[in-house]
């Protein structure tokens, strides 16, 4: 059976601190997979290793069954791996259109063109508008990021990722820091994402996780505690003890 993203015995330690220990993980095509775990479980570290922003201490990462453990981040993105950031990481003083267009230009390999003005690359701008419109941001395209409320900034993160036309999308807490009314809107947008994109979502909002994900992996102190369907996870005693129990106590 094929996987779009896979890790084998992935390990990472910072000195004596072990943040990932023998993580075996598979993401199926078109997956809606959630990675949950208490604070400090190593979830963001795991995403950073998948992306290539952080090198693992040992173990291997496979993207479309090719070993990409030593492949730089830029090359992984070109092979269809996209991400959003837990803490919004945008081009703050640039208009939304530019935020999305910069990524599209990288995908289209037009980002190093030096002569024709950027604003005359109509096909890039059209696509950027298309992604913004899909997330309900068409009216804000000319606004600078700093002039937008945080909830909308979270959506720009997703718009940029979509502009890369990823086959695999890593969403690092897409609803972090937004009020619950806005998080509902983010969930609605996530549910509209094309079904052929395999999605791994990290999220603390359990309501969102159980509505969105069809599989859930629980990570505790760098170790995979259990993996299963939302029902199995909800009934799992160990998960309640280390994670849900603590959260609902």
């Amino acid at each position, binding site marked *: 059976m094929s996987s779009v993203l896979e890790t084998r015995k992935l390990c990472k330690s910072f000195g004596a601190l072990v943040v990932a220990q023998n993580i075996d993980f598979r993401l199926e095509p078109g997956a809606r997979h959630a990675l949950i775990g208490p604070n400090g479980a190593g979830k963001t570290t795991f995403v950073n290793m998948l992306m290539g922003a952080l090198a693992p201490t040992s173990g291997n990462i496979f993207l479309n069954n090719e070993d990409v453990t030593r492949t730089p981040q*830029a090359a992984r*993105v070109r092979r269809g791996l996209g991400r959003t*950031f837990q803490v919004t990481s945008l081009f*703050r003083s*640039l208009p939304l259109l530019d935020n999305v267009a910069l990524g599209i230009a990288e*995908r289209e390999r037009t980002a190093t*063109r030096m002569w024709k003005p*950027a604003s005359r690359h109509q096909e890039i701008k059209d696509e*950027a508008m298309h992604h913004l419109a899909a997330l309900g941001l068409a009216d804000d395209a000319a606004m600078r990021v700093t002039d937008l409320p945080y909830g909308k900034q979270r959506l720009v993160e997703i718009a940029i990722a979509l502009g*890369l036309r990823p086959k695999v999308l890593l969403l690092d807490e897409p609803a972090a820091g937004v009020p619950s009314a806005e998080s509902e809107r983010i969930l609605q947008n996530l549910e509209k994402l094309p079904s052929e994109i395999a999605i791994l979502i990290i999220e603390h909002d359990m309501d969102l996780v159980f509505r969105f994900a069809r599989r859930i992996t629980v990570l505790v102190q760098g170790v995979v505690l259990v993996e299963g369907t939302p029902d199995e996870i909800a009934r799992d005693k160990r998960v309640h003890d280390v994670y849900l129990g603590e959260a609902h106590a």
Partner: protein
Amino acid sequence: MSGYSADPRIRWTEWLPWVAAGAFFFLLPEYLSLGARILIFILFALSLDLILGYAGIITLGHSAFFGLGAYTAGALGAHTAITDPLAQLAAAAALSALLGLATGAVILRTRALTLLMLTLAITAILLEIANKWTGMTGGADGLAGVKVGAILGWFRFDLYGRTAFLYCLLTLFIGWWVVRRIIYSPYGAMLTGIRENTTRMHAVGAPVYWRLVLIYTISATMAGIAGALLTQVNQFVGLNVLGLEPSGDVLVMLILGGVGRLYGAFIGPVVYLIAQDYLAKQYPEYWYFGIGALLIVVVLFARGGILGLTDRMISLLRKR
């Protein structure tokens, strides 16, 4: 403002510097040598703005390329039969580009203070080489007797500096045109992206390091051409084109004018060099004091330089 949302057409205000330069040529013929010097430093500041203002590369060593260009033209003119000014410019551009590529490929893997120190070290090394290699550079005495032929075999450098001024003006115009194209291009927009958020640029698949090496090389080439112009106009080159001092001077000029706004590189050298010229005549011992005071005032009260201040004044007037 550049990028995908910008209007790339040239606004009428963008022609003002060229109108001013034309007026300068006809109205102030006795100041043409100062004028040529200003034009050269505008080109130098423009090259710095590309990497500092747009790509966000912080440097105290930009004089390495300016100096290499200056000495390349000087050595050719003094030691060889290559006196054609355009050939000298081309040689200076090529060597500066090579140095930019070679040093950029090493130091652009680092950031912030490390990068700052490495850029400074490179120009300090070149300064020491120029100081010691007297046979080639004339050492501390400088290299006099640099022969520069007629441009295209036709336009001789005259005693009044008319040819020199127009030659510098034309070179600057081409440099400005190229820089403006780059800034408004997808590549320029991408550089702004790197400056704004490098992490995000990595995450959308940009090989950031190579992109920086490329703009560093382009900027080095321009700085080298500016240095060669200085030698050709003076028919002399001395150690003051290398090391911390000229790097600092051009940085101060750019900050005075406004970083990352293209025309800051025009305003800064004009103000700096005219103030220097005036102060040096009035107070030969204390003229740096005046420059220092000017810089403090601008940094404290006019963030974004003189152009930033102008922007704010215009928007205040519009609100009324």
